[in-house]
């Protein structure tokens, strides 16, 4: 193991003293924001997904399938715009081969349900039925093996024929492994190993890319992602409308499953986050927006398990970066209940000035240039929007990392991206 690590370390691109100085200055800007100190200037984040296809003049499909090509396009973009932090662009886009190898059913992507020049899209479905709450609660791992994994990825089909492990003992344990000899299980294991090897190639492409960017002086914004317990169940198990009905029909079971999910999600994220060179954990938030539930429902079902998870991550030395999608203005007072100087709150449509008023002494802020303005507006409008944020948030003491509302929209014209970075430097000094 140590030999492998040494080789991997030796393979890392070398960072020149100049690049190190640039890297440290950029990272310091972000960490000053996290620590609620005033940085030397307003940091700027760059978080594109399929905008890279537009920038590199390739199709979305090419971006998803060509590790080296995508890394080259992403590097060009980073070197042109020189963000203070960038996103793990290869990890986030070039996953077509992995999706194919695992036979992923929860997403449609180019060549698999959408056109070659369209982004991947998630399929909101019921992946766990209402009468399966008890199974999940009793034994989440068993539920994954018996039900969930074959439902969401074809590589796992057959894995449900594995023995039920709890209960195996003595000679019953010896006999119990017989199921591994079943053709269905053998095929599943072969498929999973094949998929894992592709995922490993993808992961290495991602690691090599971020290492190279580090050597060039550009820190990555995060490499670990997380999910709130409520969103985990709503998006990936129950589906949107079923989860909304669960708020009335399955209240107690929902609360129990959120408590349980908080524990294993925290463990999963902490393990990944602590193995990562970057302490920031990106957590896209889907179900917190104001219209999605009442304040009482939010405070009962959504926030407690997420807050507990945030605290677990913070206690483990990580920096949670929830991205609060849509408008969460009515949630601001509630989500302010965390220790100061430990998180980055990224807002999409929440008024950033209002967010600064409520949360300015608690968290760093990130965002939030409007997607409609970025895609359909002109450079003067982008300039004005950046100026508004700089003058009314950053220069009033807000620890703002300038970025788009949920990352760079796929269709954003080049001149608007240039305007965003130019204005960020002009007004953020």
């Amino acid at each position, binding site marked *: 193991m140590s030999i492998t690590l040494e080789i991997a370390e030796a393979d890392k691109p070398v960072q020149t003293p100049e690049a190190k100085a640039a890297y440290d200055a950029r990272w310091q800007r972000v960490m000053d924001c996290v620590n609620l100190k005033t940085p030397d200037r307003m940091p700027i984040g760059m978080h594109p997904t399929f905008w890279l296809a537009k920038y590199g003049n390739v199709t979305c499909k090419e971006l998803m399938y060509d590790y080296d090509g995508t890394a080259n396009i992403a590097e060009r973009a980073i070197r042109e715009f020189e963000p203070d932090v960038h996103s793990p662009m290869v990890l986030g886009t070039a996953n077509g081969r992995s999706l194919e190898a695992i036979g992923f059913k929860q997403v449609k992507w180019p060549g698999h349900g959408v056109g070659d020049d369209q982004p991947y899209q998630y399929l909101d479905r019921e992946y766990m039925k209402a009468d399966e709450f008890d199974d999940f609660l009793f034994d989440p791992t068993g539920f994954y093996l018996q039900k969930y994994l074959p439902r969401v990825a074809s590589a796992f089909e057959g894995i449900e024929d594995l023995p039920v492990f709890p209960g195996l003992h003595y000679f019953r344990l010896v006999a119990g492994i017989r199921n591994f000899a079943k053709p269905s299980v053998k095929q599943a294991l072969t498929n999973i190993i094949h998929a894992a090897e592709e995922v490993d190639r993808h992961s290495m492409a991602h690691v090599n890319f971020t290492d190279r960017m580090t050597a060039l002086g550009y820190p990555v914004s995060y490499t670990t992602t997380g999910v709130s317990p409520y969103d985990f169940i709503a998006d990936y198990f129950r589906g949107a409308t079923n989860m909304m009905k669960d708020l009335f029909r399955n209240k107690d079971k929902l609360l129990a499953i959120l408590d349980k999910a908080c524990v294993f999600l925290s463990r999963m994220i902490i393990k990944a986050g602590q193995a990562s060179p970057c302490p920031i954990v990106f957590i896209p938030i889907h179900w917190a927006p104001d219209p999605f539930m009442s304040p009482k429902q939010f405070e009962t079902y959504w926030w407690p398990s997420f807050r507990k998870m945030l605290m677990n991550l913070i206690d483990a030395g990580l920096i949670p970066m929830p991205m609060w999608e849509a408008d969460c203005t009515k949630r601001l007072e509630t989500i302010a209940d965390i220790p100061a100087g430990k998180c980055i709150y990224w807002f999409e449509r929440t008024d950033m000035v209002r967010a600064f008023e409520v949360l300015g002494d608690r968290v760093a802020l990130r965002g939030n240039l409007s997607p*409609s303005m970025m895609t359909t507006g002109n450079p003067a409008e982008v300039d004005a929007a950046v100026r508004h944020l700089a003058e009314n948030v950053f220069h009033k003491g807000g620890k703002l990392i300038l970025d788009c509302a949920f990352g760079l929209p796929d269709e954003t014209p080049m001149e608007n991206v240039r305007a965003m970075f130019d204005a960020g430097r002009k007004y953020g000094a």
Partner: protein
Amino acid sequence: MEDMTDQEQQLVDWLADMMEDEALELAKRMLLEEGASPLRVLELCRAAMDVVGKRFEEGEYFLPELVLAGEMLETISAIAKPLIKSAPGEEPKKLGRVLIGTVHGDLHDIGKNIVSFMLDINNFDVKDIGIDVPVQNFIDEINAYNPDVVGLSGFLTLAFDSMKETIEAINQAGLRDRVKIMIGGGQIDETVRAYTGADAFGVNAVEAVALCRGWTGVAA
């Protein structure tokens, strides 16, 4: 709604108060055991939805209440509709026709489905033509269905251009003056409305109903 019996009022209240088990049991009893008029029961459902819509507008209710109300009404409708032996003219008059779909390139349907349901329960004829709808399908459906309103839905930013293309095509087909066009979805705002050339945008299903009522001459 006036002149309700105590039992009818109870049904409206339970539906409006999200008391699903009680409301469904009572509706079933009224329809299957007591011989209540199915049209009358559906009318009570609409009265309950008026209350739900009002509470939504006033900020007391949110999306989960609209969804649960939709489910309750769907269940009751499934029992009531086969029992209808209506005389001509007995069914409530429809306020107008709405053609709705998610624009091409976008596969999202949750918001569109809620808008469709809310329009349906508010006495609009709704034709939902699904997700990822090609421009030409909208043109063909407008010609065939002759709607008063066309609703374009989309969640992704790519929908901005798809909506613009669809509206331009409707214009080029000479159909623009025949329909009002509303757009909606997670990223839709006034900037997108102006960009696409739509007549209006809505941020939720209740706003969509208000737009359609306004365009078809119904007092809000």
